[in-house]
């Protein structure tokens, strides 16, 4: 598919660097995997060794088990593999998320992984990089996706919570358990009331705290015996928890969902939640396109999302872009949107 002289090529196992003999976010177990971040669609179990950012090590182990063989390096520090230099740089997506910079005799490729430009209290800010070839995600690669500032969104969440609290309701906010949940918890005003968590979220919270990220106190729902405590509380849970079996323990509830997909009304209505908060750990259209231009790359490969549309647009802007098929097709339920 890509000729052999290319520094990175797409194989049936994912992106591969032949010269350095390593894969980036492989789709199948391989010998050496460089991991951009620990979300399920970027991390596969069963690889012999993993290379990950220092701040991402804990999370990767939480996901894949303590027994995996991991090498972790601080952001910005390069290592050599058969004459190819690899370094990891903050992607601003979740704690430990990295862009992978691959440099061979001055030819530079960058694999973005998932990234966002907006600051996030729970992870290092995105670092713009220069490169010749940029491999970018495009989860929200259409001009309809344009994020409001997170301060406005947090105000909306706070206001919703306070209103529910005044009505004696439990506020249930569905958010992806790894990253989004912690970003929200860190941004909430904990003086309003108790912040409760679903088990999947609490696990990651522990991991974040161990990695030195400050989060307000949270309490795992299952440890609460007095149901009175649910009244007026805010519960953070992953989207998959939205089943009658799980929500029945709460008396009167108001449900909301935090995701970039909430930008589209139809998505919110389908989820059957009262509120949709447009909060994403991915870049919006402007974030993606600005970043692509900032890299100075002539070649842009686009994966994950609205690749066909972005590619056409980038080509019209004079870049040399092409769409790369992805194993995964983003979907609200099982990825980190």
């Amino acid at each position: 598919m890509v000729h052999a002289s290319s520094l990175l090529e797409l194989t049936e196992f994912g992106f591969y660097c032949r010269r350095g003999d390593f894969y980036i976010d492989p789709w199948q177990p391989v010998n050496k995997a460089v991991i951009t971040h620990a979300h399920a669609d970027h991390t596969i179990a069963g690889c012999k060794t993993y290379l990950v950012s220092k701040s991402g090590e804990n999370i990767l182990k939480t996901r894949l088990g303590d027994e995996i063989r991991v090498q972790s390096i601080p952001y910005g520090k390069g290592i050599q593999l058969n004459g190819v230099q690899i370094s990891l740089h903050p992607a601003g997506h979740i704690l430990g998320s990295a862009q992978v910079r691959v440099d061979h005799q001055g030819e530079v490729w960058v694999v973005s992984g998932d990234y966002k430009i907006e600051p996030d209290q729970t992870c290092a800010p995105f670092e713009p990089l220069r490169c010749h070839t940029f491999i970018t995600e495009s989860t929200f690669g259409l001009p309809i996706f344009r994020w409001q500032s997170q301060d406005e969104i947090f105000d909306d969440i706070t206001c919703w919570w306070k209103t529910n609290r005044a009505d004696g309701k439990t506020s249930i906010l569905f958010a992806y358990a790894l990253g989004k949940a912690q970003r929200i918890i860190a941004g909430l005003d904990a003086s309003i009331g108790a912040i409760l968590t679903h088990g999947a979220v609490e696990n990651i919270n522990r991991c974040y705290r161990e990695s030195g990220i400050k989060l307000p106190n949270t309490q795992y729902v299952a440890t609460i015996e007095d149901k009175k405590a649910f009244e007026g509380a805010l519960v953070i849970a992953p989207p998959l928890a939205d089943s009658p079996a799980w929500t029945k323990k709460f008396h009167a509830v108001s449900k909301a969902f935090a995701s970039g997909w909430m930008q589209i009304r139809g998505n919110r209505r389908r989820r059957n939640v009262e509120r949709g908060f447009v909060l994403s750990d991915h870049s919006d259209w402007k974030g993606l396109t600005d970043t692509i231009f900032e890299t100075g790359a002539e070649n842009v490969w686009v994966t994950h999302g609205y690749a066909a549309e972005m590619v056409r647009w980038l080509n019209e802007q004079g870049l040399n872009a092409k769409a790369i098929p992805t194993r995964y097709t983003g979907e609200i339920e099982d990825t980190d949107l």
Partner: protein
Amino acid sequence: MKLFARLYTALDETTRTNAKVDALVAYFQSAPPEDAIWAINFLIGRKPRQVVPTRKLREWAAELAGIPAWLFEASYDVVGDLAETISLVLPRGNASNDMPLHIWVEQHLLPLRSKKADTQRKEIDSAWNQMDRVQRFVWNKLITGAFRVGVSHKLVTRALAQFSGIEEPVIAHRLMGNWNPDSTYYHQILSPDTNDADISRPYPFFLAYPLDQDAEMLGNVTEWQAEWKWDGIRAQVIKRENQVFIWSRGEDLITAKFPELQRAAQKLPDGTVIDGEILPWKDDRPLHFAELQRRIGRKNITRKILETAPVVLMAYDLLECDGEDVRNNEMAWRDQRLANITAQISGGRIIHSPKVNTDSWKDLAKLKDGARNRGVEGLMLKRLSSPYGVGRKRGDWWKWKIDPLTVDAVLIYAQRGHGRRSGLYTDYTFAVWDHERLVPFAKAYSGLSNDEIRQVDRFIQRHTIERFGPVRSVKPQLVFEIAFEDIRKSPRHKSGVAVRFPRIARWRTDKKIEDADSLETIRALIHD
């Protein structure tokens, strides 16, 4: 406009009826009468006609957003709603302005239509620039003539009743017909003097339960009246003080939608109320229900519609006779009176519902099962001694439906849904075997749970073979049981057959595509 946009958001954010009514009441409490009357006007569906061609709007929006037309279209395909797509791509404006709704409507929206394109464009640019995203969305809905929000006429009526303390039927009466959306009329709607509304007041409908037991259990067949269960719009036709009012079961006044029926009902004696079914009807037969649906969707009843989809009233029951409430008389008595009344009305627009007489339940069941080609849904069973009750009650009235036909078919094309299901692949085309080939046979979208829809959507995304604009062909792998009411020969369709009301009965995860039905077996379902 902010207040109205906020109301729109509140209505949009909930599916709970009570929350919607609360939002409406809150709006009426704070909106000035000049605005509130326009809100009522739009909410009950008296939306303005399209002011600007949508082609132009798309062009202007794409230009302002600085994106090529194709990218706008691709975005529209994902969002599934034009007004929303525009509101999402436009650059942020200066939304500090808060002009009241009635000023926007009266001074900007309504005059727009008669302006030249470049003036229209200037006006619309300037409007967009003064609004935030939600306001733009609502505004776009208004200028595209597509304003719709999930509230019925009835909910607005209920909210106004709650807000004013005036009975619902009185409000409904006042909302019908032609009125000017001005503050004078708003005060009239809320006026505590209710004499004006008495003559239009309908009775609550009596509804049948689906028969969930063996018909033999109902006792002696001679104690029952059987008639066809027609597939139209259940309605009450009222003639009092020389005026005609037609109410739908949803308690909407629909008189103006059926001028031919209104004329026919003028011939009824004063003080008559008939319960019946409005049916599209030609050459002594009902037309497809879709004809009626299409007609109802139209704002203006043109001569063409009156010719292609004329309606009749299939009269079921008599509720008021000579100005007296006769609902407590026996069914048999009421039916006899009804027969007398309808016999005097010439023109064939009001038909006394024919009775299906047999000596045994067995014969009746046979007639029911063979009734499909009559264009009916089954039979209605009513106890001859029954009064006309209120609401849905078990015991005296039953609907006895024909079982739907079903076929196992393979999903081969998918398209994104619009409206409520926008964004996901929810519109499907199904195929059956014609020897070695799969031929498209029906389109269907309803019948899956939200969870299943998401699963199928994911399958489609991962198994797309080809894209043709918004349509994707997908790997033939999923099998669904498709139910439908009727099947006819149709040279216009590739498969040579057309089905009525196809819908997904269930997802046959247990079946492989080899197990799907063939055209041959389907053709055998056609009865001539």
